[in-house]
């Protein structure tokens, strides 16, 4: 356990204070910095885009509005141009032109990101993948799917399920998010526990670089050790190193038997012991282990009128098993449930094997984010911690904030050591924000956690990177950015801290 040293603290302060201009300040490192000297869009630029993308160059402010605001409605840009290319070639021509003209570009998929990374900060041109939604190939022996970056995750899931496969990732935003966006942010989600991260399941990428060069690394090979693995640079780079235009991804077979158990625990310690028992008794069939606390359940009941299927408990667990043999899985699951019930690790629970009931139980976990939006302004923190420490952060935060916050709730991928800490107040409250940050980041850093487990840094968290990465690492990231995007036109003001130059 190491505290941030006085030197580290000074370094962070220095960088914040001396970052260019007035926007980001020690009190508010998440705010936008001043606009960098990119060119502004002219009539000639519009003429070029309109010729390249007839009918797909949007300048109507009403149509632009929803693309200028993030899903949480917490950040808003002023872009005047939204471009909708259909092909990689069009993306290449757009970027080549913008690079020459020094026009900033904000790549945008489903716009479901939670850190303000998917919308413009100022007048960046929005480059949308919404019309790049073709499946290119699918091989049902290897399970390798190749598709354009604008395919909606749920549509890909439906396509694959008809062919007896599934996507290796699943998240609450599946109805809107694009696979290109998922890859650019290295999205985690509910199935990571079982199928691993996109860094393992993505086999190849096609990326357009800042100067328009097309990098075709769309391999569909499970194993290929020839040279540096460039795709890993782009996965998780949040659109700052290149625009992903196509993805090839390894898909698992659709499980024949899926079961979901919804359990109640009276303490976090018992929840952790249930997890250990679960790992031991369910082993290879375990596909998800999620938790939510009692505060989350009250919000679901209050705002979304969902019913708690079991008796009220301080903690709730969602366990999913997925396997190829229903009888085998049910037997294992029932033995496990008997064990945790008789040993009182679990106080109540229910099980579902039918699709409609399974959806209903999952919605209790997947819709917490939605329920929170009805409480006013939400401060969202996506933290990775050693699994035993996860709920300590929620409790410490409650104590620390007292009456200043209306709700302090915890939920998330406890199986992956990932907490979603959410705090609400009726409206945006700078005093509350000052009490939360940097307390939450220092707490996380103290336990060597990550200040952004899966949501990424985007706009809101870019200046906090030093809490989880050493300065040498961040400096090297800056060099790579400078090499791939010397003019800095790709998604500026995001991901890397303001004073990277």
């Amino acid at each position: 356990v190491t505290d941030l040293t006085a030197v580290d603290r000074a370094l962070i302060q220095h960088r914040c204070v001396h970052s260019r201009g007035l926007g980001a300040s020690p009190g508010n490192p998440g705010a936008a910095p001043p606009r960098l000297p990119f060119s502004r869009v002219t009539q000639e630029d519009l003429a070029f885009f309109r010729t390249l993308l007839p009918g797909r160059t949007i300048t109507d402010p009403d149509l632009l509005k929803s693309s200028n605001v993030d899903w949480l409605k917490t950040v808003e840009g002023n872009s005047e141009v939204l471009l909708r290319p259909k092909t990689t070639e069009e993306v290449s021509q757009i970027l080549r032109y913008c690079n020459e003209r020094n026009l900033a570009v904000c790549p945008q998929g489903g716009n479901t990101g939670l850190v303000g990374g998917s919308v413009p900060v100022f007048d960046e041109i929005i480059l949308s993948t919404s019309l790049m939604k073709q499946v290119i190939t699918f091989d049902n022996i290897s399970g390798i799917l190749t598709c354009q970056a604008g395919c909606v995750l749920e549509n890909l899931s439906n396509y694959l399920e008809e062919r007896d496969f599934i996507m290796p990732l699943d998240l609450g935003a599946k109805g809107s998010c694009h696979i290109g966006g998922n890859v650019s942010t290295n999205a985690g989600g509910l199935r990571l526990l079982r199928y691993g991260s996109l860094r393992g399941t993505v086999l190849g990428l096609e990326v357009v670089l800042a100067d328009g060069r097309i990098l075709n690394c769309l391999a569909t090979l499970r194993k290929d050790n020839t040279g540096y693995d460039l795709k890993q640079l782009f996965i998780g780079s949040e659109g700052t190193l290149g625009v992903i235009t196509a993805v090839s991804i390894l898909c698992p077979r659709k499980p024949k038997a899926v079961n979901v158990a919804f359990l109640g625990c009276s303490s976090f310690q018992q929840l952790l012991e249930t997890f250990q028992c679960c790992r031991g008794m369910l082993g290879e069939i375990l596909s998800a282990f999620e938790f939510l606390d009692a505060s989350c359940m009250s919000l679901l009941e209050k705002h979304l009128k969902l019913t708690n299927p079991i008796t009220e408990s301080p903690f709730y667990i969602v366990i999913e098993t997925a396997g190829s043999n229903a009888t085998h899985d049910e037997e294992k699951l029932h033995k496990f449930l008997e064990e945790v019930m008789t040993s009182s690790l679990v106080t109540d629970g229910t099980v579902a094997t039918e699709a409609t009931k399974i959806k209903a139980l999952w919605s209790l976990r997947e819709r917490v984010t939605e329920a929170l939006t009805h409480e006013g302004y939400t401060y969202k923190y996506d933290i990775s911690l050693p699994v035993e420490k996860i709920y300590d952060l929620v409790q410490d935060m409650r104590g620390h904030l007292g009456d200043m916050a209306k709700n302090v709730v915890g939920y998330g991928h406890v199986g992956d050591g990932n907490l979603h800490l959410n705090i609400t107040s009726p409206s945006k409250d700078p005093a509350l924000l000052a009490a939360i940050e940097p307390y939450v980041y220092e707490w996380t850093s103290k336990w060597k956690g990550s200040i952004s487990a899966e949501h990424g840094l985007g706009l809101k968290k870019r200046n906090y990177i030093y809490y989880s990465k050493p300065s040498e690492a961040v400096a090297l990231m800056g060099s790579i950015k400078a090499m791939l995007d010397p003019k800095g036109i790709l998604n500026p003001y995001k991901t890397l801290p303001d004073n990277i130059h």
Partner: protein
Amino acid sequence: MSARVLVGVKRVIDYAVKIRVKPDRTGVVTDGVKHSMNPFCEIAVEEAVKLKEKKLVKEVVAVSCGPQQVQETIRTALAMGADRGIHVEVSGKDYETLGPLQVSKIFAALAKKEQADLIILGKQAIDDDCNQTGQMTAALLDWPQGTFASEVTLEADKLKVVREIDGGLETIKINLPAVVTADLRLNTPRYATLPNIMKAKKKKITNVKPADLGVDVSSRLEVLKVEKLKEAGRI
């Protein structure tokens, strides 16, 4: 109240499954396909269990007709609160051709044998959409029927039933013994909780054959063909 309730629970292809017609067009594919309790039967079980919790009836007996697999469906009813189960064994060709007429004869025979005071069934099954078993059972027993029930109240030895009909809601009062069929808005079925799932394992399911009840399950209907509806359009 010493009343005994019989509840029918049918095992059907799960509501969320995409149905595939067999290539020979004699029926739909059921092998390896997810099955579950007919949603209207769940509502029927819930209503019966609620009556028991209010101490208005003494015993809830869950009944299902079919092969070995229907025992799962009976177990689900037991986990929701039914006291015991009866598995009427019907398999093979007889099961494929089993329909409302034969099932209602079985229920009528069981009602007499078990001295039931009330039979609650789902209004229809989501696989055949027949909506006949409840009505036929009442006719065979010469009992009153309260069908499409969205509310059921026991008042001494009479049953007040609010029925969902085209024009609105119709309230009727019928004598016991009676047959009630459950409609969607009658109640919201409970989740079977783990303690009850454990208890259910110990509850009894008795096996009985249609012949023991004096029922002939042969069918007078012949299915000529089963076809998929023409697709209206592609997404």
